[in-house]
């Protein structure tokens, strides 16, 4: 049973692969019906599927493919001209074959799949209806196959049983000859293509090996069917099968590939992700070590190792990514057929031009990109390209052209869909949107042409006057938008009335490891996927306008809605609002937004990690990543952020935190912090201030002082700061403190032995109010402090 399952798996994988190419070939065939090579290729697919399915006991599938084969065989021999009507039926039968293969994959049997009688009759009509002159008994049996066909090898064999041995010999000879010719032709083609040629014997050997199980089981059936001796019969099935299977087998063996379970690749990718994080961490540590041990000899060596590890990790990551890449042609392949069907259905003449089908994309993206493309192309056929009469009236060529092109652009792949149809009319779009209640008139007035084009992606929006089979329900483009958003992609539309419509999809190459822009908001950091970042600009705060309670800014000729990241993520505004601020312009699918952040930190490779079931699906957060310093940084979910921005009202830039005025009744309610690394100095200051009766808190360096301040345990009225201190000196401390809004008015008094003018200047720059030089008299210090904390009471 397991063996059967294995064979079945192989059969399905092979069949699906064959069929993928089939659609395109068939459409091509319609345009060039004389192309014998093409016809042969198609015939072989039908034949291969038939052979294998009969071996696996799929009677219905065998029957269908058998009849298809008949038609194709006749066409191949030039006895039948493939008219579009015949093509329709052939294509339908191929669809049915596909459906049946899917059915087999899901159910393990073809019994109970769709009824094929109808199509079989039609296929027969093609074969027999015009096939009276047919005299090809060796290949095509004249009468339709009876329904109760026993399990047998291939159609030809029924005929063999009637042949004499001499005839059989001839037939084998003929088939062998045919196969050798094919091989030869293929080899020549390969040589032309400049590829390495495998020795012919090797291929045959391989094929025979592959077929090994076949003769084992076959003979028993043969015996039951024919009276001929087994010895004579035995070699035959394998030879005939060889002919049937050869094209497919040799095609794969030349490419030297192995099949790998996608899960293994996913696992590999996860491991690489961890490695990338490790690498980030290593680089960070290297930087720290470099700073601390500047000039040491071992640094050189460490640097080399770190850069090698980092280089190899990057290469490894790219290599693994490549294993997951598929050419986008896999998706594009189905469109020629689709365009053909649509143009017949709509009565238009449409040509499809495909370019860049060899461009590669991550497998997961290839799977997601199919649907949106289908919708866009259907739209182009239905709404874009005009009927023939209209086109002629406009002086355009009869045949409309839809272009489908893919190419790489940095870390992205761009897919361009163009049509030379009637284009989009911004005003018409606006009117429809208003009438359907998608936007208000006021919104419409503020819209530029490009923005108006994006209206087609709004749910419920459709320009079609009636709902047709093809489009008009107003869901298709919404699907496009959602799917592209899911991939962190960007949609760009350009159009000219009666000229063209061009839709550009820009999609990141991979989803697992991404480049991110790290931004700072107050004391927090966030990572924004770089794929969604269009640009960053530095603006002054008075460039931000408020329109209808929303913040906006002018970016070149556009009005860009703005949102403060601190509002989205409810960050406490502890820092003072600076005069200048940074705006990160984000684009996702068709919309744009500006996000105000306080600092831009830089670009880093990040790996998306889930935050577990407990915190899954938090608004605006796509996940978390681990930074080089071991800390966790949240990743912004751009799509969600845009949604949240809509419901946010603009807030006044800085809400002054009304600090609760502390009631001070006695001198000990006043708090003064003494920051000095020398214990002696601290004691001297303490003694000097004792007569004031204020509460004193000590800190040994800047960092400790900052932590005490931030902990908020006491509200300080003044700080005495030494300049020379380990870890954080007095200047840096003052700089840090002044960042905070609420400490803006906290008097900082420098107490130092540095006396030069430059030192004093620097003290003033960072916001020190007084500058006391050591040594000083206790009374002087006391008076300075007293003055600064407005102490009026006497102890």
């Amino acid at each position, binding site marked *: 049973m397991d063996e059967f399952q294995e064979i079945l798996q192989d059969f399905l994988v092979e069949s699906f692969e064959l069929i993928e190419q089939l659609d395109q070939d068939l459409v091509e065939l319609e345009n060039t019906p004389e192309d014998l090579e093409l016809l042969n290729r198609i015939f072989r697919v039908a034949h291969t599927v038939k052979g294998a399915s009969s071996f696996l006991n799929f009677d219905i599938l065998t029957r269908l493919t058998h009849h298809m084969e008949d038609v194709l065989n006749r066409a191949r021999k030039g006895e039948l001209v493939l008219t579009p009507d015949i093509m329709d039926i052939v294509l339908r039968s191929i669809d049915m074959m596909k459906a049946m293969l899917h059915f087999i994959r899901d159910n393990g049997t073809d019994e109970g799949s769709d009824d094929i009688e109808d199509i079989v009759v039609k296929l027969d009509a093609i074969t027999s209806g015009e096939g009276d002159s047919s005299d090809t008994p060796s290949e095509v049996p004249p009468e339709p196959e009876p329904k109760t066909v026993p399990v047998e090898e291939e159609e030809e064999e029924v005929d063999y049983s009637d042949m004499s041995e001499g005839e059989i010999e001839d037939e084998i000879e003929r088939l062998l000859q045919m196969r050798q010719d094919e091989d030869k032709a293929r080899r020549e083609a390969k040589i032309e293509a400049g590829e390495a040629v495998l020795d012919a014997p090797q291929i045959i050997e391989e094929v025979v090996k592959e077929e090994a199980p076949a003769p084992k089981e076959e003979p028993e059936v043969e015996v039951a069917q024919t009276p001929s001796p087994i010895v004579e019969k035995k070699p035959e099935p394998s030879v005939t099968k060889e002919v049937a299977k050869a094209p497919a087998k040799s095609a794969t063996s030349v490419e030297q590939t192995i099949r790998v379970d996608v899960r293994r690749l996913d696992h590999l990718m996860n491991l690489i992700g*961890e490695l990338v*994080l490790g690498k980030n961490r290593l680089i960070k540590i290297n930087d720290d070590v470099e700073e601390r041990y500047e000039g040491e000899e071992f640094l050189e060596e460490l640097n080399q190792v770190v850069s090698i590890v980092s280089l190899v990790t990057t290469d490894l990551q790219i290599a693994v990514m490549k294993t997951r890449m598929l050419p986008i042609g896999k998706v594009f392949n189905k469109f020629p057929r689709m365009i053909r069907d649509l143009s017949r259905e709509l009565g238009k003449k449409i040509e499809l031009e495909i370019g860049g089908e060899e461009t590669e994309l991550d497998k997961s993206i290839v799977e997601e990109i199919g649907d949106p493309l289908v919708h866009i192309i259907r739209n182009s056929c239905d709404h874009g390209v005009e009927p023939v009469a209209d086109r002629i009236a406009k002086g355009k060529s009869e045949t409309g052209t839809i272009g489908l092109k893919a190419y790489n652009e940095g870390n992205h792949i761009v897919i361009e869909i163009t049509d030379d149809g009637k284009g989009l009319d911004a005003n018409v779009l606006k009117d429809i949107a208003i009438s359907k209640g998608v936007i208000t008139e006021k919104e419409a007035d503020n819209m530029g042409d490009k923005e108006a084009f994006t209206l087609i992606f709004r749910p419920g929006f459709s320009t079609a006057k009636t709902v047709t089979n093809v489009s008009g329900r107003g869901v298709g483009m919404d699907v496009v938008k959602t799917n592209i958003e899911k991939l962190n992609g960007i949609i760009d539309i350009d159009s000219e009335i009666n000229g063209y419509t061009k839709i550009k999809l820009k999609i990141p190459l991979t989803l697992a490891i991404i480049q991110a822009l790290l931004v700072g908001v107050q004391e*927090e950091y966030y990572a924004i996927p770089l794929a969604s970042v269009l640009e960053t600009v530095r603006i002054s705060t008075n460039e931000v306008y408020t329109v209808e309670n929303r913040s906006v800014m002018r970016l070149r000729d556009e009005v860009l809605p703005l949102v403060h990241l601190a509002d*989205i*993520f*409810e*960050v406490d505004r502890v820092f003072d609002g600076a005069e200048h601020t940074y705006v990160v312009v984000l684009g996702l699918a068709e919309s744009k937004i500006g996000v105000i952040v306080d600092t831009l930190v830089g670009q880093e490779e990040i790996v998306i*990690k*889930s*935050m*577990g*079931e*407990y*915190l899954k699906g*938090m*608004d*605006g*957060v796509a*996940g*978390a990543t*681990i930074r080089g310093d*071991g*800390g*966790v*940084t*949240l990743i912004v979910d751009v799509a969600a952020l845009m949604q949240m921005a809509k419901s946010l009202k603009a807030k006044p830039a800085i809400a002054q935190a009304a600090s609760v005025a502390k009631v001070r009744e006695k001198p000990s309610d006043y708090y003064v912090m003494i920051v000095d690394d020398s214990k002696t100095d601290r004691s001297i200051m303490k003694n000097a201030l004792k007569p004031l009766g204020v509460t004193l808190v000590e800190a040994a360096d800047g960092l400790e002082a900052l932590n005490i301040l931030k*902990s908020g*345990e006491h509200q300080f009225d003044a700080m005495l700061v030494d300049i020379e201190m380990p870890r954080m000196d007095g200047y840096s401390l003052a700089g840090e403190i002044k960042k905070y809004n609420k400490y803006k008015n906290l008097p900082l008094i420098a107490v130092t032995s540095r006396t030069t003018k430059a030192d004093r200047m620097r003290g003033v720059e960072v916001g020190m109010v007084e500058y006391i030089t050591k040594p000083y008299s206790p009374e002087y210090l006391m008076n300075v402090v007293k003055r600064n904390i407005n102490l009026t009471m006497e102890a």
Partner: protein
Amino acid sequence: MSDKMKNIIDNQKKQQDEPDITNLDDVMQLVGFVVGDEEYTVPILTIQEIIKPIEYTRVPQTPDYVLGVFNLRGSVIPLIDLRMKFGLPSAKQTDEARYIVMKSGDEVAGFVIDRLTEAIRLKKSDIDPAPDTASGEKSIIEGVGKQADRILTILKVDTLLERDF
């Protein structure tokens, strides 16, 4: 010398004579900790590890008691303040504060506690189900353990790890 020897032998003998408390089937091992003024316990098997407080990152749009997430050797894990979860006022973390990382199935989260007390072995027969008043559907109490001089509250880790917002 012989006294010392005797002591050791006595001790060993004593341990051998007490198989009922070492028989794993009948005994539940608990870890006790303090949050606010009360002592709580959780079954030792639900604890993945106990670590000293490390830096964490705030996650927006979460209730107060979800402090954020932290990095535990490459995994991102939520951090929950049990004080706030139990409705107690937040207080400054002392040096004795710890993160207890608990797991149940695939769910893992860290919980901030004020200090650890001890590991406790309790006979299963000494554990009663949670008193009726506290055994509502969302009860976070698994049961109550009786010891000679006190009563221990055993927390239900499944409920603690359940997202309730």
